[in-house]
């Protein structure tokens, strides 16, 4: 099967290893990810006030272009993109006036560019790779294709916020008791632990604007995972990866008795389990190197 793929800014930049693993792993499962031609920024944050209609232009434009490519679905790997695109789509589908206004903007834009434009009503479906693996591929068939089960690798699943909330608009899984990530990791043979902090916020952009506060918050999460004996903390959002992985050195300095835990993107674990070619991984990008634990426990 084939999907139109929207990588988003971070997955082609600081987190491009996550992206490569994602593509490779998907290919291994006969899911072809066709990158969307000249895609633009998703908008990063969904506008939360009624007056900021402009904030919808970027994501909706992306959706309109996706429609232009003749695909019914647009696939993402990044929670930010997924959240913004999906909520924008929801707004277009369910809020008449916003649909009208946003279409007016875009029509104007397209016409100026000499393209014809017909009103976008949310025809495109925004999907996340996890959804595809769960609903289309099916976890049992994933298990079937796993050649290197990550047995006795104790993994703490971490969702963060944007993949699940708001439940009414995203609806990928139960916002408080999600299972999709556990199920995937289970399918890969991992030993999934019950991780209470899996739906807490990683601190998001505060990691940049208020690093100290963000650090305390993300420390709480990582530390709990390590106390619960996790070998790996599995994440689904590049920003989570940043807050939880790249700042562990600081945590180590700030908090005594802190044991570091490697943080891995779900696509990395997927790739490992499917034994896709080595060059997709770039472990050096991890602040906490997962290799040692992978070798000792995961037998890699």
């Amino acid at each position, binding site marked *: 099967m084939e999907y139109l793929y929207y990588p988003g800014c971070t997955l082609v930049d600081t987190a491009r290893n996550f992206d490569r693993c994602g593509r490779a792993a998907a290919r291994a499962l006969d899911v072809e990810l066709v990158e969307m031609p000249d895609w633009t920024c998703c908008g990063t944050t969904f506008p939360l006030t009624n007056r900021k209609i402009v904030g919808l232009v970027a994501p909706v434009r992306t959706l309109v272009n996706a429609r232009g490519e003749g695909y019914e679905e647009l696939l993402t790997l990044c929670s930010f993109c997924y959240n913004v695109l999906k909520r924008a789509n929801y707004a277009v589908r369910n809020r008449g006036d916003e649909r009208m206004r946003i279409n007016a903007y875009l029509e104007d834009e397209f016409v100026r560019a000499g393209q014809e434009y017909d009103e976008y009503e949310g025809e495109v479906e925004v999907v996340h790779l996890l959804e595809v693996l769960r609903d289309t591929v099916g976890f049992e068939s994933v298990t079937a294709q796993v050649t290197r089960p990550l047995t006795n690798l104790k993994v703490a699943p971490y969702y963060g916020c944007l993949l699940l909330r708001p439940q009414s608009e995203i609806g990928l899984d139960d916002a*408080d*008791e999600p299972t999709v990530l556990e199920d995937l990791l289970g399918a890969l043979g991992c030993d999934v632990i019950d991780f*209470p902090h899996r739906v807490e916020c990683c601190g998001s952009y505060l990691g940049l604007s208020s690093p100290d506060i963000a650090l305390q918050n993300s420390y709480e999460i990582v530390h*709990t995972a390590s106390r*619960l004996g996790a070998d790996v903390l599995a994440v689904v959002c590049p920003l989570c990866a940043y807050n939880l992985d790249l700042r562990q050195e600081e945590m180590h300095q700030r908090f005594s008795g802190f044991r570091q835990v490697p943080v891995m993107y779900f696509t990395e674990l997927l790739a490992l389990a499917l034994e896709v070619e080595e060059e997709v991984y770039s472990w050096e990008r991890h602040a906490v190197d997962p290799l040692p634990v992978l070798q000792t426990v995961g037998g890699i």
Partner: protein
Amino acid sequence: MAGIGIFVCDCDGELSERIDLEVLGSRLQEHPDVVDVIPHPHLCSEAGLALIEESLAGKGLGAVLVAACAYDLYDVAFRPIMEKAELGPGQTVNLDLRVSSSRDENVKARTKHSVDRALALLDRLELPSDKLELVPEEADHGVVRRALVIGGGIGGIQAALDIANSGHEVVLVERQPSIGGHMIQLSETFPSLDCSQCILTPKMAEVGRHPKVRLLTTSEVTGLEGRLGRFTAKIERKPRYVLDSCTACGDCVDACPVLVCDQFNTGLRWRKAIFQPFPQAVPSIFALDDEHCLGLFPLACGKCEQVCEPGSIDYDMQPVTEEIEVGAVVVATGYEMYSYGDVSEYGYGKYDDVINGLQFERLLSASGPTMGKVMRPSDGREPKEVVFIQCVRSRNPERGKPYCSGICCMYTAKHAMLYKHRVPDGQAFVFYMDIRAGGKGYEEFVQRAMENDGVMYLRGRVSKVFEENGRIVVWGADTLVGKRIEIAADLVVLATAIVPNDGYESVAQVTDLAADEHGFFTATHGKADPVGGSVPGIYLVGCCQGPTDIPETVAQASGAAAKVCALFAAEPKRAVPEPMLAEA
């Protein structure tokens, strides 16, 4: 042939404020049997009554529906006129247009509701063709002096006793193998702290032995036809597979190989497939749970039959449906706790040590699974720190029920207090939003819990509950100091919302009773007639019409009994004239 006439009263503009009488009228006009809809600003005024009288004569109406206010008024103002026009109870019916008034603010909804009620009532009217049904000798306004009580909890028990003690027959129908309802599951009751079983068992025994009460357990009402004073009830008696000759010796229980989750003990204990829910059960006859028994078709086990000395086991027992004539019905179907399923953020159903209030009652009960010792379901340890969370899915229109469950504040205070009596060195915490202690001695009771038993009250909701190395971590807030609270507890008790007993649907469907969107039956009028159901002759008691505590339920039960007895009373004429006045 004569059709139905409808009179619509506006009660001096009182009613059109809440209901679109125009719409009501036109919708009813569409009914095939309706010949005329006659509006009037104030039907019970002289003019109004006159209007009714002449239209009855002029239009030769065969049956009449009066859409006005409370049934009480109908009785005094309109019935005489109807009787003068030789219209019996079967030909006249009164619709209380206020039934749905107290519900949401929206006129449209109320109007629709009223129309539906009216149409339902129209079908109950008997047009002259079938008027013969009134047999002369029963002409004392055709009242069958026998009451049907649905539900054998404290409400049903009290109503049944009051009616029976007034000398009228009562048929008490209960779905479970024993009467007693939820009250018999409770440990001790607030605010007097007397043990629930001690005060209820005498009443249960009394019902069991009362000559006027016919007790039908493991039975359900499957049909109800007729009207005020003359209903025909269909009652299905489910097989209990144990004959009345059972002596409750319990030999069968030892013999039975099947372990089943014990519902009476809220799943905190096992029982056998043949069982008696609790020692004081009435009737004290065992029952066989046919979902789990191996003895039933095909006969694979039969151990209980072998050991049963009186030979009381009968695997071939079949359901029996009988029809019983009754003059009035009392509905006391009670409540249930909000279902397990979706209290996900509190890990309810996920962690053993997160339980609901009813389960905690069993833990406290001297006859409960732990013989009254408070211990954690997970490992049997005595919890040293217990967190009680109120308003779980109550007062929560987003994720649960918008209404307040009424009784949780008090039973939680009681729980905390009793926990402290059992575990003196333990600490109890209560998360609340408002402490609702409006009842005799209630406020003082809660104060006692705080002052004498050192129960820690925290004003705020809990956002999340999760397990961490053997303890249950609670994330809450204290909105008074403006601080977030984290408590690592041994046990968490959730005061989950009170919802109608799942039997309500079938009862509503059978009786035509109006129910609100949550399934609670609506009284004719919350203030004027709190126990009157929306169908004349059917009365409501206790939690089936909204969360109600025990004293209130008992009062309502007696109240309903009064209505029934008044209805059954010999034709109201003055008793022998004794000298009322004597110069003192």
